[in-house]
Structure formats: structure tokens, C-alpha cells
């Protein structure tokens, strides 16, 4: 423990204090909590205001709904990513897992040809969903075992899986895109549309799924043993282990959770687009990490929460769609992707290290920069990128 760290703890950091205790001891609001989450929240408000001024189409119900459905994809990935980051790891394979999950869904929806029996099986949609999620979980298990059991660095293990999984997705379709995901009534496999393409009370299903997953995630983090174990082992793995926390199991499970979240995102995305491309979700892992970091989580592990992460996803989604609406070139958006990630990490460095100087640096920058810096690849783009 260096002195700098000790100092941080002593100077009464609002951030650390708030980020870690969403549950138990936080009856009533603390100013620090509002300040911390205000950062991302403020950025979001500025984004909405600025784009509303620039384009009359931005702040309309229809557009907000569209943007929210894009956000839901990022948010699902980011929630899974948050769990991994809380554990002090990183999961680079989420974008590929998203792509593969869509491909699995597309493959199953188009019928499984059983050569031996000479028949083609069309599994029901719920089976499709379960199989796709199971594939996501399996990828997570592989990541988790590599990292916890074989001590491969998370960055390297998941980077490997990023390639492997993407390759498998491309192999399954030979690079082609599945376009028929509607199913047929006579085959009994309709309903895939319902997972993302359809709306309920004019709000896309994906948004509901995001909310449900966020609530589950929040409950898991704040109210269950697993959540506490996760914060503890992310904060200090050695101390957690000596306190009887099964740190290896926790580690495997966070990658499984991340895999399942990515798979769900993949299903929703392919349903939204009514097609499944093996290249879907390319570079989304970076978007997810950026959302988590913008949401105030520490890449060192142990600090962060779902609310912040959701806000982070909204910041990214609303920003990138805003740029599309006001007609900024997609090349620029790529530039912005990198800028946003660097900026987000920079902010967290300010937040966790430079906090004993002044609160200002961490409170104001997001508002000023969100308008001139900008966002990651936008969802509308990837629909037609099939190879």
C-alpha cells in the first residue's frame, strides 16, 4: 500500500465511498453519490440538449425509442462487462459472442438438418434462445477457466476468444448472413420477431430486456452473497480468499454472466434487424468497456455499479445516434470511438487519483467534451455489413 493510496482513502473521496455501497449502509442520499453519478448524468443531459438544438428530429418520441433500442444492446454488453471489470478483469470477447449468438439463432431458425434421419428440425423459439444463451455461457466458461485455473491474463484469454468465436461464426455461415428469422406458422417456430423487432406499448422489447437484466444485475450485486463476493474479490483478492470467498468460482461466474449477457444482446440485435450477420458486434467490446468506465467503474476492480453503467451506455448511444442524425461522417465516428474510450479512462484516472486536489476536474469535463468528442459505431450501420 503506497502512501498515495492511503491518502486517497483518508481524504474522504466521494466516489470510492459511494460506488461501493449501493446497498446496505446507504439509507438516504449523500452528496458524493449525486456528484459521482451526476458526471455521466450531466453529460447525457448536455448531449440531449445540444442535439435537440441542432436537429428538430432528435428529441422526438420516435427517435428516443429508436435510440433506446440501440442503447439496449450496448447496455446488455456493458452490464456483463461491469461484472467482469468489478472482478478486476476484462472481457474482449463480448462482441464476437454477440455475433455468434445471432448466428446460432439464425442457424436454428432455418432448420437443423439431421442427415442420419433425413429430416429437418425446426426448434421452437424458446429452444433457440436457450441454446444461444448456452453458447454464450460456454464461451464464458472457457474464458473463466483459462483465467482462474490456468492463470492466463484476462486480456489475453479473452482476446484469443475474440478471434476464435468470430471465426466460428464466420465458419458456420461461410461468411454469409441469415436473412430469414421470422419462422413459419406451419413449422411452429414463429415469434423470433418478438424478441427485438416488435414493440410493447410502442417501446421495443430490447428495452424491456435491458431493464430486466439491469434490475437482476443490480439485485445480484447489492443483495446477494455473490455480489458481495464479487466486490470483495475485485477489491482485494488475497484478503477475500483468506476470508473464505471462493475467488476462483466467482471469477468463472462473472465471465459466464458476461457471455450470457452478450448472447442475449446478440439475439435481440438479430431479431431487431431480422437478420444475423457473422460480423455483427464487431468492436462492441470497446463500446461496452467505454460505457462501464464512463459509468464510473474502476478498471482496477471493486468499484462500480449498474446505474452508472446504464448511464454510460445511454451517453454512448445517444451521442452516436445524434451524430448520425446531424449527418457527421461515419469515418469521424470511428475517430470518436477511440477518443471517447481514452477520455473515459482519463476521467476515471482523475476520479480515483487526482481527487485530493479539487472536485472540479472530474465534475465538469464530461459536459464540455461530450459535444465535441463523440461516439462509437452506431447500431444502424452494421445491418448491411454482411460479408
Amino acid at each position, binding site marked *: 500500500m503506497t502512501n498515495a493510496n492511503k491518502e486517497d482513502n483518508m481524504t474522504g473521496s466521494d466516489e*470510492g465511498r459511494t460506488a461501493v455501497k449501493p446497498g*446496505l449502509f446507504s439509507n438516504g442520499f449523500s452528496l458524493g453519490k449525486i456528484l459521482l453519478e451526476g458526471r455521466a448524468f450531466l453529460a447525457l443531459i448536455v448531449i440531449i440538449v445540444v442535439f435537440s438544438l441542432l436537429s428538430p428530429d432528435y428529441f422526438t418520441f420516435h427517435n428516443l425509442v429508436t435510440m433506446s433500442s440501440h442503447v439496449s444492446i450496448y447496455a446488455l454488453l456493458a452490464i456483463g462487462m461491469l461484472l467482469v471489470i468489478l472482478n478486476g478483469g476484462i472481457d474482449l470477447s463480448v462482441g464476437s459472442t454477440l455475433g455468434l449468438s445471432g448466428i446460432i439463432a439464425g442457424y436454428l431458425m432455418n432448420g437443423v438438418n439431421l442427415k442420419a434421419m433425413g429430416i429437418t428440425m425446426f426448434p421452437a423459439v424458446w429452444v433457440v434462445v436457450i441454446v444461444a444463451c448456452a453458447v454464450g455461457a460456454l464461451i464464458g466458461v472457457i474464458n473463466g477457466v483459462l483465467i482462474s485455473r490456468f492463470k492466463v491474463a484476462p486480456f489475453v484469454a479473452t482476446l484469443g476468444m475474440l478471434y476464435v468465436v468470430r471465426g466460428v461464426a464466420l465458419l458456420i455461415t461461410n461468411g454469409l448472413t441469415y436473412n430469414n428469422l421470422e419462422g413459419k406458422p406451419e413449422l411452429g417456430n414463429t415469434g423470433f420477431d418478438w424478441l427485438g423487432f416488435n414493440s410493447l406499448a410502442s417501446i421495443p422489447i430490447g428495452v424491456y430486456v435491458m431493464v430486466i437484466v439491469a434490475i437482476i444485475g443490480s439485485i445480484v450485486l447489492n443483495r446477494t452473497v455473490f455480489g458481495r463476493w464479487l466486490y470483495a474479490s475485485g477489491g482485494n483478492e488475497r484478503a477475500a480468499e483468506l476470508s473464505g470467498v471462493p475467488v476462483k468460482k466467482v471469477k468463472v461466474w462473472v465471465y459466464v454472466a458476461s457471455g450470457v449477457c452478450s448472447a442475449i444482446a446478440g439475439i435481440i440485435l438479430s431479431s431487431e434487424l431480422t437478420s444475423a450477420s457473422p460480423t455483427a458486434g464487431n468492436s462492441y467490446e470497446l463500446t461496452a468497456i467505454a460505457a462501464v468506465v464512463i459509468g464510473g467503474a474502476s478498471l482496477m476492480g471493486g468499484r462500480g455499479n449498474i446505474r452508472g453503467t446504464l448511464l454510460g451506455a445511454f451517453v454512448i448511444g445517444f451521442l452516436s445516434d445524434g451524430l448520425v442524425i446531424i449527418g457527421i461522417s461515419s469515418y469521424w465516428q470511428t475517430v470518436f470511438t477511440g477518443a471517447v474510450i481514452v477520455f473515459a479512462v482519463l476521467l476515471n484516472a482523475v476520479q480515483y487519483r487526482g481527487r485530493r486536489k479539487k472536485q472540479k476536474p472530474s465534475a465538469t469535463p464530461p459536459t464540455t467534451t461530450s459535444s465535441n468528442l463523440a461516439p462509437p459505431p452506431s447500431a444502424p450501420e452494421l445491418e448491411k455489413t454482411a460479408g
Partner: protein
Amino acid sequence: MTDQSSDAPTVADVVLSARDVVKTYGGTHALKGVNFDIHRGSVTTLFGENGAGKSTLMKILSGVESPTSGEIVLDGETVTFASTVDARDRGISIIHQELSLAPNLNVRDNIFMGRELTGASGVDYAEEARQARQLMAELEERIDPLTLVADLRLGQQQIVEIARALSVDSRILIMDEPTSALSATEVDVLFRVIHDLKAKGVSIVYISHHLEEALQITDYAVVLRDGAIVATADARDIDLDWIVRNMVGAGFNLGEPPTGYEFGDVALHIDQLRVADAENQDRSVVDGVSLQVRAGEIVCIYGLMGAGRTEMLEAAAGRVPIAGGRVLLKGQDVSHRTIAERIAAGLCLVPEDRQRDGLVQTMTVGRNLSLASILSFVRGLFLSRRNEQELVDESIRDVRVKTSGGGAEIGSLSGGNQQKVVIGKMLATNPEVILLDEPSRGIDVGAKAEVFRLLAERAARGLAVVYSTSEVGECLSIAHRIVVMSRGRISAEFGADTTKEQIMAASGEAVVA
């Protein structure tokens, strides 16, 4: 200028002083208007309990922190340090209580970190290595300058830290707990070095919890309590009692072995335990140690650094693998169980390094306290907040943690209170046997006495307690039995009626006159 410090001999004698220094962290006053003088060519020792503000004051004097108000006077001039580098350039350096070495670098690179010696072709490694070797020779430590710091034991790392401060040739050297991990021989060497430095006119500020030890080298004693200086004196006029009286404001002792009950059955049975050296599997750091501890009994394990105490305790708790022998808990072999299973069975360990192994810095006091016993308040799928809150409140009361409540940040507590949290966390699991590795390391007398009292209370209720220490005085406190370890073996066993000299002789330690 020096009118407040009545004990200061002459004005010219004072090199560095703090004038009405106030430091606040948020709402808490760490220092409440302190006037503190450092005299040329002498050792000024700062006594005080944890949280009294010693470290804060030293950080201000060495440029790590700036005071909220008040000023620092160097050679009669008011100065402001922009940074530690600035302070170092003016001849002030500090040895921090918490080690600040880079474990991934070797000894040489750590010593010269930030002020590498450069020649025509970049860094002059050969010269650095030569100087490092010389420093090590001065400190009588056989450490090769090219050894990785991570491979050194804690005591050696502390030596490196000291060497680094010595290498600067500063006029004022602040030593914040330099001996906490040193063996008696190493302390002797350090004291000799301090004498040499004094002779060269270097002014030294010394902070230590080993009061007796510190008194040996002190010229001026200053006692800090609750952020204010309560007493200043020439070392010739005072004794240990004076220091302790001023530190805690009242007399104290570290306790006596609890009596008035019979020991129960054997709770912990360590049988021919062997632990292999992590670097060299053929060597044993614990070599066939057998130990039986009964319910209600308190056993103290004394030994020098490297005697195998830590390894034995960690092997018993399941932290390091055992190479041979068995660990039995109430007759049950737990040798192959995980840490979690051993905790559930009633065997737990309070580790030596509480920052690294004891606490989760990102969590609150309450969550640290409840971490080990968390499974006991799961209701259905969820944690019962009410049960947790009850447990946390009870623990805070039980182990007497001074905190604003369970929601306080763990870093806001003083070292002693942090240690109580680690102990409280383990006691909350209702253990049958508790192992404590150096429970008094880096905590003040008051907190030590409290920790020992707590353990004695628990032992009287049937808990088997095993603690290790490297301070002889602590062996003769609450322990019913004292086991001395040396080179991985038990070299002697004593009852509570033994003497310090006997214990030290058995450990292979030279008796300090």
C-alpha cells in the same frame, strides 16, 4: 520564533520546525496547531498512538502533504514544499511506514529510483550497483543489488527502504516506523547507522511503536496525542513510564494470561507439519513442527523473521500448501480442505499484512467485518440487511472499533482500528481456533492492549488462540504457553513464568543489553 518550544536549547540548534500547523481531512482534525522542532545532529522521537497524527505531521514536513494552515520553517526561513522532490532537494527525506518500493524492480533500481545516476551513455548501472552494495554493507545486510524486491522478505524490503533514504545524503531524515519488520540484530545495525549519521550532523526524526527500543536512541522526546503535542522533554529526564503515561494519558499493561477455568480438549493439533520453500522445493521453511493447542489456551509463537512462523500459520489455515504432516481440528484432518472449508470448520487466520491480505480497501468497515461470515445471514436468495447490520454493530461494539459506523470507509480508520476490523471479521465466524500472525504489527500500545484483552476474553470462553510475535514483551502478556521457533523448528517451549532472556536465547537472538 522559538518562543513556544521552551525545551529547545538554542535557536540556532533548530533546523526544521512546524509552526501552528493544522491539517484537516474533511471534517476531522488530524493536527490541531502543532509546534514541532527538529534539532541539528540529534534524534527527535515522536511518540503517540495510532491516529495521534504522527504520520500526518511527518508527511507535512517532508512535502507529501501541505498543511491546511500554519507554516514550516527551514533554517529560519518560511518554506513551502511543492512536492517530495522539492523537499528532497532541500535535504529532507523520509522512510515511510508503509513500504513504497516497486516490487518488480531490483534493489539497485529501487534505491536510485527517480534520481538515476547518468553518465555519457545513459544510466550508469555499474556505479549505482557499487553504491547500492556499499549501502548494504553499511547496513550489514547480505542483499545483492540485483535481487528483485519482490523476492525479499519484509524485513529486507525495509532495509532497502532505509538504504534508499540514506543514499540521498540528506540533512534531515524522517523515519516512520523503520523497524516494524526488522529483527533485533537488524535494529542494532540501524541504530549504529543512526549514531553515525548524528555524528555527521544529520538530524533525525524517529517514530516507532517499540518504545523501549526507540528510547535507546532518543535525544528529544515529543509526545503527540489527538493531533496536539502534549509533552516535550530531553530524553535524559524521562523513562518508559513517562512516555506511556503521556501517550495514553493513563497507565496500562498488555494483560495477563486469563485464569480461573480449565482448558478443554485439544482444538488444534499440528502434526509434523512441513512446508516447502516457495523458491526451492527441496528446502523446508517449516520442518516437522508439532503443536497442540487446547480450547481456552493462548499460545504465543516467538521467533525472528524467517523462523517459519508465518509459513506455519498460513499452512495451518490453508493459504500455502503443506509438504508433509497433518493439521487436525478437533481430531478431524483438515489438511486438504480449502480456506473456506477450514473457516466453516472453525479455523481462521488473521494475516500478518493487513493492507495486503486483511482488508478490502474498496469496501466499508461494515462490509469488511461481515465478509467472512457472510453466509450466515443469507435468507433464501438474498442477504438479510437487518441481520448483517446487527452483526456489524455487534462486531464494532465487541472488538471496540472506533469508527463513525459500519458505513465508514475502511481507510478512514487508524492502523489499530483496522486491525481490530480484521480480527472482528474472523471472530464473527465463531471460530474454535484463531491464528493471528503478528497481530500487533504497526499498532500502538493502547490498541495492542485492547487486542490482547479481546483475545483473552475469547479464550476464557473456550477459543483456542495462537498468535505470533517478534516482540518479546508481547510473549509475556496473555500467553499461557510460549513456543519459540527457529529455522523452521520449535526450539523451546516455556510457561507463562519464563523471562525475556530465556525466550530470546532460545530464538537464537543475541540478548540486547
